[in-house]
């Protein structure tokens, strides 16, 4: 209800201006239109200090962000979230831009599930597909973690994130490993 109280305050200020205008000899409609002095006066008084406040905030943000360069800035979200951004960068170097992929994400400790969707897994799925774009993800269930055996068989590549390729329930081509449980593999279709 704060908007209503602000509105009441503004109307009060307007009423005050009408009273002052009447004291000054303005009557009827003339005293009413003088109400427009209120917003102009409020803006004239507040605009410069508020702009200065905004200037300070903008400068603070610049100071905070200026040290970030190139990839650091580009990958900030993933780095801050603690996701394996280097792995996706590594994978992107090996998957052609016109090739497709399917992302297999392993169980995340302390995962919270909402409507069957793991929140962390969903976030990694969104980030991973973003970092790998413009390569296209295929057969990518919104549930993020593969619930269907063999899903991803239509993709050129399978990308394993925190998931042991040995646990993949389907045939695979050669597995190229970045780190344990972080690997890419040609799919059975593409090998």
């Amino acid at each position, binding site marked *: 209800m704060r908007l209503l109280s602000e509105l009441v305050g503004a109307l009060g200020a307007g009423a005050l201006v009408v009273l002052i205008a009447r004291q000054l000899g303005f009557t009827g409609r003339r005293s009413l239109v003088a109400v427009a002095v209120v917003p*102009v006066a*409020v803006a004239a008084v507040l605009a410069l200090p508020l*702009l200065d406040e905004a200037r300070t905030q903008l400068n603070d943000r*610049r100071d905070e962000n200026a040290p970030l360069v*190139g990839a650091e800035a580009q990958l900030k*979200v993933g780095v801050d979230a603690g996701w394996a951004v280097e792995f996706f960068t590594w994978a992107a170097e090996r998957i052609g831009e016109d090739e497709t992929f399917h992302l297999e994400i392993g169980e995340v400790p302390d995962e919270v599930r909402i409507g069957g969707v793991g929140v962390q897994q969903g976030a990694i799925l969104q980030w991973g*597909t973003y970092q790998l774009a413009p390569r296209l993800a*295929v057969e990518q269930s919104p549930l993020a973690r593969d619930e269907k055996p063999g899903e991803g068989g239509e993709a050129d590549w399978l990308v394993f994130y925190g998931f042991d390729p040995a646990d993949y329930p389907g045939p695979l081509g050669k597995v190229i490993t970045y780190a344990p449980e972080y690997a890419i593999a040609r799919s059975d279709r593409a090998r």
Partner: protein
Amino acid sequence: MRADLAPFGVDVLLALAGLAILLAIGVVPRRPGSWMAALGLAYLTGAAVVPLALTALLAIGAPFTLETFGVVVLVCLGIGAWGWRRADEPPPRAAPWWRRPWRSWPAEVWVVGAFVVVFGAFALIGLRSAWVMPLTEWDAWSIWARKAQMLTGHDSLVTGFFASDSYSWVHLDYPIQIPVWEALHFRARGSFETVALLRHFWLFLVAFVWAVAYLLRDRVRPLVWAPLLLLAAAAPGVWGQLLTGYADVPMAMFVCLGAIALALWLDGGDGRRLALAAVMLAAAANTKNEGLMAAVALLLVAGAIAFGRGMRVRQLGLAAAVTGAAILPWRIWTAAHHIEGDMPVLKGLNPGYLLDRTERVWPSVEAILHEGGDVGRWRYLLPLAGLVVGAALISGVGRRVATFYLASFLLAAAGFVWSYWISSYPLEWHLQTSAGRVVAVLILIGLAALVHLSGLLLNAFTRQRIASAARDG
């Protein structure tokens, strides 16, 4: 250096294309001396028209490349040249102020000068900050920039993304005005580097303030618009939200300019304003679904007032048809690819469905009121707008304009409440994640009312004072 500057070349071309369109529809006079003042409006017109055209071309399968962009700009310039040739405009009555001795310059020139210095400094500080700002807000990278990324890496609406179940979380039904605009900048840069994006978003703020001042120049004095627009620019809900890279504030800016143009048409019957309104509202509707809702609200209210006043409703109908036609290609493309939105619109017209979930109404109203009254984000824009609307309605000065803004605001707000009412998302989560952004449209409709009506009221006050002084003298 080249990579940093080339995307600004896109902005220059958008401004040129927009200027040409404004010349063609007659919103900007033919005199080149007046073009500088119109540059903000020109940029936003270009940012409206060019992505609309590119969206239509994408929908019919034309390749999305910088060459196609160049052709669209050339077509706009051709339309502008055609409009420029056929316009018959009387020469200005007096020499422009800058040709006169500086001591005889009107006071308003000094006010505008002071405004340019203050706002210009703020704009430069903002640009300096936006220059190094990474794109970190969730929907900004996961929805909007991702779509731009796909349009940068592919030359078409590649169905493996834009119509794929694998990407259902990116809201495939959302229109692509902003992704197209973003992708033009990425393509000009030669790479998808998101840190180079927000500096161009910042131009929206600069152009918007410039555009409002220009559009209302004949009705509102600089002494009135200058402080009010500075107050709006200083509102963190405007500049801060713009620098998230979300589409809400650009969409609200299109709506605001469309609202002003419609109000000017209602006030004077000038069809050129109506053409501008159609362009801006089409861009808003092609930016977000909330923009479509706001555009419909504005057009319905304008239609009702025009009908009541015996104005040329057919002219408005034509503008509404243009708005509808401009957004149709995307809607047809999504329908053809069986892409459905999250909003159960048809169910939302079913009284039984609505009655079953009435408990969602009041929390939605409360959330919108709560967000709209957030002084920390929006400063005092909405209560001040309420005050001048009230004064205009009671005094009769600008009553038609005030009625238009108030009814549009209420109808758009009712539309947003309805969308929360019918939404299948859990209400608390939905309100938490969107009400603070969605309300930007209402705030900027309020800003349009605030600047426009303050000007009309103070003009009336001054005129009456002069008239009474003459009478007394």
